[in-house]
């Protein structure tokens, strides 16, 4: 009898515990942190990956680009013209969070707004692929002349400057998201400043936005594809300090955290990695420094770099050595670009013999007696890690007898000096905008706005032009690969590393996607078990 009573009590307690556990587990909230708050959630003003990641979850573009896969979004289907220049999208029945329908006019307005010079959008360059995009942005044509047109409420037609296979995936990018004209005009400059000054059409709604503190997302009950959304919501907490974020993960407050390189040894067994898509390289002041104008001198420097050691010393072996320029994981024609076009242009270890040969040729061509006559300034930002990177590279380059002086300036000053061609060598980088090698390679065309070093090669320009207008995908990709080889052969830049980010994730979270294009974290279809 007494045993029976005890058993009953024990079972009752167990039941209560189970109920409590279930009640607690009922709310599936994914929690992670951002280093800084979103500067804006206005799609056309967005200018950071943090912003585009949050926007990816509260808005939806014509398509949804997830982990390299194109899925229908607001457009249920689309057609591409035979010449690859005209895209016609058919929109589905979908609602804004105020109950109004999402129409092609909202897309037309959004994209025109992106390129309207009066908007002052940082990312207006994203729309330069659209017919007259650059001209509209320069104020040479009215926005009505832009190649985007709502045929009717549910049909949108986009005409491009030239065929671009990557464009369809690119329409999933934040800059091309729709916005409702009357709503934007009603709020004026304060549109998207707060959670209640936004309209949503994505899988989640921003319930609360406490600036520099947290963003609270809840599942959008009106989202057309709500059945695929498993989470009830997400909480994005702003944690400036990377060490604090790791502590919060350890205490179970966060489900996902990026691990700073300094802490990697402590967590090496627990981390996973993903490539952010960004690569780092040295830009040479080819058009400003008389020595660096010499190709053989640049080649000598490029071969003097021990990339393996550089990665070891500066990132604890986390990043991957950049023995080529284009990150290999980017899409090729059928497989990844790296699989289709493998290349290890520079060795992992320094090839000092080859470097000295090139240096000798360079000295002859420049009419110099000794490498000590060459003095170069190494420009970088004022972070501690930048200092370490610069010192390691300085040591490697100085093995050739060249003098290298390090100059550290603020980030904004570095960018200004780069844009004004005021550098000999600068530690720089690039993050991709769309899933194609062209996003990296188009930088170095002789009249490119980002070609701050002044690399000027006719063969390279011709290959990029060919790739831009080529409709045959294989030939296009061949041209891009040939261009990459020209860039490396001519030592237009010095590739250094591909950024590989270590992170830890709560094992109960399944289905989170981390990708190098678009949203950095995609939890639309993630679940918590």
């Amino acid at each position, binding site marked *: 009898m007494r045993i029976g009573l005890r058993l009953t009590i024990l079972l009752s307690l167990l039941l209560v515990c189970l109920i409590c556990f279930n009640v607690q587990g009922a709310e599936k909230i994914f929690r992670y942190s951002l280093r800084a708050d979103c500067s804006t959630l206005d799609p056309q*003003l967005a200018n950071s990956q943090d912003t585009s990641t949050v926007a990816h979850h509260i808005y939806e573009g014509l398509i949804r680009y997830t982990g390299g896969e194109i899925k229908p979004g607001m457009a249920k289907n689309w057609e591409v013209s035979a010449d690859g220049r005209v895209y016609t999208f058919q929109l589905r029945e979908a609602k804004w969070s105020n109950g109004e329908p999402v129409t092609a006019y909202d897309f037309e307005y959004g994209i025109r707004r992106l390129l309207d010079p009066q908007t*002052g959008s940082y990312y207006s360059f994203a729309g330069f692929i659209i017919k007259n995009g650059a001209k509209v942005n320069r104020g040479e044509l009215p926005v009505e002349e832009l190649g985007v047109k709502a045929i009717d409420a549910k049909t949108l037609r986009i005409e491009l400057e030239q065929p671009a296979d990557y464009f369809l995936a690119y329409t999933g990018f934040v800059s091309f998201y729709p916005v409702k004209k009357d709503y934007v005009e009603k709020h004026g400059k304060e549109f998207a400043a707060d959670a209640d000054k936004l309209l949503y059409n994505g899988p989640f709604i921003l319930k609360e936005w*406490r600036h520099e503190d947290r963003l609270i997302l809840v599942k959008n009950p009106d989202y057309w594809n709500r059945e695929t959304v498993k989470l009830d919501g997400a909480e994005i*907490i702003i944690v400036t300090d990377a060490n604090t974020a790791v502590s919060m993960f350890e205490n179970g407050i966060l489900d996902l955290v990026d691990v700073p390189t300094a802490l990697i040894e402590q967590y090496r067994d627990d981390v996973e990695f993903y490539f952010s898509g960004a690569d780092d390289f040295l830009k040479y002041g080819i058009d400003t420094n008389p020595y660096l104008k010499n190709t053989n001198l640049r080649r000598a420097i490029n071969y003097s770099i021990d990339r393996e050691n550089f990665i070891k010393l500066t990132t604890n072996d986390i990043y991957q050595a950049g023995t080529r320029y284009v990150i290999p994981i980017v899409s090729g024609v059928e497989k990844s670009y790296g699989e289709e076009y493998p290349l290890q242009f520079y060795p992992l270890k320094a090839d000092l013999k080859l470097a000295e040969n090139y240096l000798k040729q360079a000295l002859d061509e420049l009419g110099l007696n000794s490498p000590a006559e060459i003095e170069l300034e190494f420009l970088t930002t004022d972070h501690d890690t930048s200092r370490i990177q610069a010192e390691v590279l300085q040591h490697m380059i100085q093995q050739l007898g060249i003098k290298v002086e390090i100059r550290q300036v603020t980030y*904004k000053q570095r960018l*200004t000096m780069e844009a004004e061609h005021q550098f000999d060598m600068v530690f720089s980088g690039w993050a991709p905008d769309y899933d194609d090698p062209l996003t990296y390679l188009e930088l170095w065309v002789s009249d490119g706005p980002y070609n701050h070093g002044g690399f000027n090669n006719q063969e390279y320009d011709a290959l990029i032009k060919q790739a831009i207008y080529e409709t045959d995908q294989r030939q296009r990709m061949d041209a891009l690969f040939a261009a990459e080889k020209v860039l490396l052969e001519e030592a237009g830049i010095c590739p250094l590393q591909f950024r590989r980010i270590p992170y830890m994730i709560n094992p109960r979270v399944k289905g989170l996607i981390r990708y190098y294009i678009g949203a950095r974290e995609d939890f639309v279809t993630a679940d918590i078990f």
Partner: protein
Amino acid sequence: MFKYLMKRFVISILTLFVLITVVWILVRLVPGDPFIGEKVTPQIKLNMIRYYGFDQPLYRQYLIYLRNLLKGDLGYSLKYRNVTVNKILADSFPYSASLGIRSLLFALVGGILLGTTAAFNRGRFLDYFCIIIAIIGVSVPDFILGYLLQFVFGIRLKWLPVAQWQGIKYTILPVIGLGTYTLAMISRLMRTNMLEVLQQDYIKTAKSKGLSTLKIILKHQLRNAIIPVITVLGPTTAAILTGTFVIESIFSIPGMGKYYVTAVQNLDYSLILGMTIFYGFFLVVANAIVDLLYGIIDPRIRIY
């Protein structure tokens, strides 16, 4: 008194005007371009410059700024494109002020207690104990103390939250982290002044009158010893209430300090100016209050 207040008011306004002008010029002289970015082309930069009215002559931009300032409009942030500087201040100041007031109270109460205890136990164990605490408090930087508190009480012992600002228990670690330096400073000042005051003739007179020890401490010693503390309290209050980057970053508190530093990094002209003016205003007011307090606490000091 009224004349003094008016004089004080006019000087304060002039101080603020000079501050605004100097900071406005200095901000523009900082090397670097606020509109530059990894992907900003010259055309996009030009569009941004026009959008913010930075294409107008500098004197005009300055006059427009002053005109808007008189209306209480600090303009739009350059980084947070849709948000006004006024809103950023209104959002972030309550967090910084809440943390600051708590830290100040902690520092004041703790510092006075520690300093007084040390003075009354001069040369004994308690004196050395208080001195050691004060030395540690002054010499350990806040970023080390912050991480240490977080590690010990947040991660290892799990007694208190690691970070964020969600309720009373979330405030304990950042308050200690922020207030310890001031506490140590006040306790050192209090100890020195208390010892000095103890030697004074009026203390002997008070004792010989037969006043109780508590009365002597409160009415004669504390009141006289606290004046130097009040002097440092003015600028300290302004600094502590308007946010500190390190503690706010370590404990993820959305206060002004975080905004201030990122504004400088981003060359967010309007936010830097807005925050500096706000800080300057606070400093001027805090100093004025301190001056008035002198007269109230020590009638020998005539402020007018």
